[in-house]
Structures are given as structure tokens and as C-alpha cells.
């Protein structure tokens, strides 16, 4: 893996890396790849993936009733920029 790959992985998640960060991650990846290589020693043939600890059913589809409604004022309380009851973002159509 080179710095271009690392930059692509970062940009895919909507952030950027400076040269110092790129070099540090590139260096750390050498150890990480060795640690991940240890998984290859495990035979996982016919093994199903385990996503959650338990498979018992704790989910249900609730009735489609409005619940936990928050006011517009509360919804906008933490907005970095707000005007006339809306979140403000840069113009999309210019």
C-alpha cells in the first residue's frame, strides 16, 4: 500500500491527510498488515460470519405512529449556521 492508496481511503470518507499523517499511517500499516496476516492462518472454511454476539430476536417493527418528536427549535439548537428555521449550507445551484 502506498500513500496514494491511503489518501484514497481517507478521501472516500470525506477527509484529507497531510504529508506527516500519510507517512505515519504508511509506517503503521506495515505492522498492521502483519497483524492482519495472522487471520490468514485460521481456517474459516464453512464458517458463517458472526456479526452480532447473539442471534435471539430483540427487534420488532413498531407501529407507524409519530414518536419522540422534537421541536424545530431543538432540532436547530446545535446547527452551526441557521436562518429562518433552516440549516444553512453553501448554495448548490449558482
Amino acid at each position: 500500500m502506498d500513500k496514494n492508496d491511503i489518501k484514497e481511503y481517507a478521501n472516500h470518507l470525506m477527509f484529507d491527510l497531510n504529508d506527516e499523517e500519510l507517512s505515519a499511517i504508511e509506517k503503521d500499516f506495515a505492522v498492521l498488515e502483519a497483524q492482519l496476516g495472522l487471520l490468514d492462518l485460521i481456517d474459516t472454511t464453512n464458517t458463517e460470519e458472526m456479526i452480532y454476539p447473539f442471534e435471539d430476536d430483540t427487534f420488532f417493527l413498531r407501529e407507524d405512529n409519530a414518536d419522540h418528536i422534537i421541536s424545530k427549535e431543538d432540532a436547530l439548537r446545535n446547527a452551526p449556521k441557521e436562518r429562518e428555521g433552516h440549516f444553512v449550507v453553501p448554495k448548490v445551484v449558482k
Partner: protein
Amino acid sequence: MTIREMKKQDPKILLNDAYNKVVEYQKKLNASITIIEPEANASDGLLSNIPVAVKDNFSTEGIKTTAASNILDNYVPIFDATVVKKLKEAGTVIVSKASMDELAMGGSNLTANIGPCHNPYDLKRISGGSSGGSAVLVASGAVPLAIGSDTGDSVRKPAAFCGVVGVKPTYGRISRYGVIPYASSLDHVGYFTTNIEDAALALSVLAGRDDLDMTSSYAEVKNYHEDLNGDIKGKKILVFDNVVNAIEDQTIIAQFNQLVAGLAAKGALVKHVSFDNDLMRAIFGTYFIIANAEATANHSNLDGIRFGHRVDGNTMEEVMINTRTRGFSSFIKKRFVVGSYSLFEENQERLLRKAHKVRRLIVEAVMAELKDADALIAPASGIIAPKIASEEKIDELTDAYLIAENHMIIGNFGGLPSMTQPMGFKDGMPLGVNITCNPFREQTMFDIGLAIEDLTGLKGLVKEDF
């Protein structure tokens, strides 16, 4: 002093004393992100007027909740996490939003945006993380109960380094609604106390089904504190030999062996177990892939549009990129890169799916032994808390790191109840022992913990002179 004994004190004095300690200790420990002046709670619940600390990734209505990250350092939730609601209903008073590793990603508390949290046993040493501030506030005697979260030992490791009890119950036992997540399939709410009685009492208060967290369990909640019984005659305890063999420090091994002999003398049936070392060495890599892949999705909402710190740009895309680039520390970005790497289509089979399969094999191997026993026991760590400015870095490809420092992640993989408590000391620094039990067998965990507490004599351990 237990919470039961504290409740006999004048609540006003108790709360003011806790608040004053949190304020005074801040200069030396740096354990709080926000300190809150106490107001008496009218509830006469099980924890009436008990001062508590809450890790800063738990939403608290009207109180800043930053998760120790610059991107959230102006965020004030409009609601309480279910745990916070339960704490208030039980009568507690929150006096601190405790420091933590940024976004709960880390095991040192060095990545908090307010700087390192210091260990009260030696201020030059780390608290451990990610719930370091919570551990330190209990260890220093500021509060008797502090809430943390545990994705890969983030309660149990700092508990070991700071000499307190650290509990991570069964997955789904305590609601996670309102907790800023790290990795949803591994995240647990946990907590710290100075003794087992308080640990059992806290679970009686915090546990229970919550429809706002659809992974929370319907399993019956018991009165763990009332049913505590330290008689462990006939209890089957498995000694985790892979961990013991991976630890190089013979002082730690000697103290652990002495404790196990004590349990046997109390009538426990002790059996040594060893799992495939290749599986054990794969714990960390498996964890790192799963946790960081899940984190990338969980943190995609941190974009500066609806909340948090925004860094401006000419387009929506620029705002998001600028906000996230400046808002996350380099350490967090590295973890996100790992998550992104494992989610790229060409890597998914080789990394993420492989990790999910290895996770199953690790859990199945442990459960094959644990299902016929009561607990698995091991030293929580093979080292004392490292120095903050340590130049010694543990080799991360050795068993001393891969197994001895990461074995408690098994509790997160399998959702198993797991607890660390003080075992002894080395060079004046606390050592911890970890016990892990079958799902929803917290009562057994506390009962064995009570027997351990009796053997070590370390009930109510605090370090106030630092």
C-alpha cells in the same frame, strides 16, 4: 466506603465534597471535560444523592457532550441517554463529564482533545482508556460510581491500571441509547466502582430492556446486590493459560497464581484451559478490522452540517471535508483509514468477512469450555500502567501484546459479562484480575468477585494522596 454506607451521610455534604474533589483534582488528574455544580436530586431511589461521573460520550440534556473530540466540542444534546435518565431516576447527581480517548477509540486516554488523563497512583503514568477519566475519578475517591463504555476492554483495562472494579455486562444488558457509538456490534455500557457490592447495585439500577435500543435484551433484571453471595464452593473456574503463558512479568504471574490458589482453597473447582494460540493471536486484528469498519459508518454524521464544529467551504462537499479534516485528530484518521481499507470492495472478503468468521471461531472455542463452567479467569494485563511519555513501546507482534493485552476483547466478540477488579500491586501500581462468565450470568460474576475481594482485601481501594 460503599454506596450503602454513603447514603447515611448528609446528602449536601456528600455532594459538595465530591464536587470539591473533582474541581481540586482536575489540576493534577485532568479527568473531567465538564464539571457540573451539584443540585440535590429529590428522588429517593437506590442511588439517592450519590455523586457520579459520566463518560463524555453519553448524551446529557443541556450539558456539553464532546466525546473528547474537537469536532463535537460545542455540542449540547437536547436529550438524555437512557443510562443518564436511569441514573437521575435512581437519585444520582452528575458532577463530571469524564475524559476519554477521542470518540472512545484508544486504550490510553492520551488522545483526548483536552490532553492526557493522569493515574492517581503515579501522575506520570496513563489511566488507560478509553474510559480513563471515569476510572480515575473513582480511583481517586472523588465519586463512588462512574459510567464508561467498553468496545474492546475500554472499561476493564483502565480499571486494572487504576485499581478499581470495572464492569462490562452482557451485550444488551444495559441500553446504549444516547451513547455516541464506536462499533455497534461490540459497544457495551459499563461502569466503575470501588467494590463488588456497589458494582452489583449499579447493575440493578442500570440494566433492562429499552425499546430505544433495539439490541437491548428482554432478559429478566435481578436484584444483583441483594442476592450477592461470596460462597464459591463448587464453582467451576477456568484459568486462561494462553494469557498466563504470554505474560513475561513473573511478579504478576505469582500474584495471580496465589489468587487462584486462594479460590481453590475456598472450594472452587479450578481447571486450566488453553485455546489454539493462532486463534488467540488473531483477536487484535479481528477486532481492529470490525471495530473500525463499523466506526466509519457510525461517524459519517459528523460533518458539520447539523451539529458540531463547522469549517466553511465553497460547496457542501468542501464543508464536510474541511470539517472532518480539521475536526478529527491524526490518531482517529488512522483508524478511519483502516475501516475504509477493509470496506473497499476488493478487500471485503479478505478482511471484513474473514474477520467476522474468525470472530465466530474465537467465541465458539471459548464457549465450548465456558458453557460447562462458571468463569474464565486471567490477569487483566501483563504490565502496570505505562508512562505517559514512555519511550518503551511494546512489540505489537508478540504474544505479550497480541494475547496478554488483548484477550479481554473476547468479552466484546461474544457479548459475555466480564469484570476486572484489583488483584495486588507492583512497584506501587495496581494490578487487575479479569473474570468472564456466561451470557447474563452477572450474578455469578459478582459472587466470584466478592470471593476475590475477600482474598485480596482490596475492597474500597482509593488513592487520595497524589
